[in-house]
């Protein structure tokens, strides 16, 4: 690599890394549904990305490379969690606290809650496809699983969500508290 290429690449790398931070956070949040854990996951991802910048051969693949790191950080986090408690018993957002029950039950809450109840593999695939628009092949590469598994996980995830969300009674989802007011 010549010096000019190196300088350009380094500048592009940092710029892209900065641009990607909010996107990484949103996907991390959709996996864990906890702001502090999502924050830690993104910080870990950024540190690892900067330390291993040289392993990124093609800067055009930086997005999927970053999400691969994020996915690995998430896996490490879950592994760590498993040493102390069974991951199957771990519910992220369904703990009913008094604060939670008082929250306004709008669609955002309902959808996020439904996504949080999906098995974590399905949740990961769903958010990479729906929130980041990755192709199935890219998701397979990021998560280190076959494309067929990506498709079946996505299908199962959407089926489960469909049962939870689209089958909801109309008044629960849409008309509850819906009103329009005009500002003059």
């Amino acid at each position, binding site marked *: 690599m010549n010096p000019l290429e190196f300088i350009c690449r380094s500048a592009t790398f940092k710029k892209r890394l*900065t641009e990607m931070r*909010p996107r990484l*956070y949103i996907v991390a949040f959709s996996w864990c549904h906890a702001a502090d854990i999502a924050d830690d996951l993104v910080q870990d991802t950024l540190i690892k990305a900067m330390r291993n910048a040289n392993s990124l051969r093609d800067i055009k693949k930086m997005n999927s490379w970053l999400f691969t790191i994020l996915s690995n950080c998430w896996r490490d986090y879950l592994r760590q969690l498993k040493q102390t408690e069974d991951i199957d018993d771990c519910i992220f957002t369904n703990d009913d606290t008094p604060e939670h029950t008082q929250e306004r039950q*709008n*669609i955002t809450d309902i959808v996020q809650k439904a996504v949080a109840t999906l098995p974590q593999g399905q949740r990961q695939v769903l958010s990479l496809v729906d929130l980041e628009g990755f192709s199935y092949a890219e998701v397979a590469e990021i998560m280190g699983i076959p494309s067929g598994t990506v498709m079946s996980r996505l299908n199962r995830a959407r089926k489960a969500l469909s049962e939870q969300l689209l089958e909801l009674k109309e008044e629960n989802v849409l008309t509850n508290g*819906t009103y329009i007011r005009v*500002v003059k």
Partner: protein
Amino acid sequence: MRNKNRHSGAKYSDEHLNAFIDNQLDTAEKVELLDAIRHDAELSQRVCKLQKLHNLVQLSYQSIDVPEHHKEQNSLNKPSKSKWFAAASFLIAMGSILGWLSHQTINPDNLIDIAEVTHNNPSMNNSEHWKLMLHVSTAKPHRLNIVLNEAEALLEEYANSSRYLELEILTNSEGLALVTNNGKNYTQRLQKLQQKYANLAVMVCGETLERIQHKQKKKLTLLPNINIVPSAINQAVKRQRSGWSYIRI
């Protein structure tokens, strides 16, 4: 991806329909499926259902509060003054070269190029009364102007025909720029359109409005005649369920 029965919508597996929603099919497969959707109401419903789920998930995470330190304006590590000077000199030099070499900026210039999600309601295609929602969540002036160009062209076209158009522009997230940046070229254009066409409604997401006001600790001034809806997601889903076509930018 497909089952063997070739004469009904049932031959298309859910995986195949998911692949269609996620733009994973090749052109020939898409054309075949679109043709099947046109002739099979049940298949069309299955596709709509998946598209709605996709939209729901996407929209539900759009309003997440990203911590300030993860937002774009924060640099990862601030360089020293000498580094700034070196970088600035380099950029000036490179800028001059690139400025010389580049003749024009490439910008997409129509709605479909900038649309992130589109959902057309097939039952409305031949209708005399077309309902369209344009959901804007960007503050980029170029994109806002494209939305207004398209809105203006559609409103004008329908005003001169016997058909009726109901157009709703829904703003949330950064899209609030369209209804709050008074004095900007695009807000003036929007106001003119509203004065001219009664069939144009402009909505703003109450949740985004509340969040921004809370963050800025002051009340935002909206343009006149803007409707506040409690939640953009709620409004988008409600409209799609009642047969509106939907395009998100």
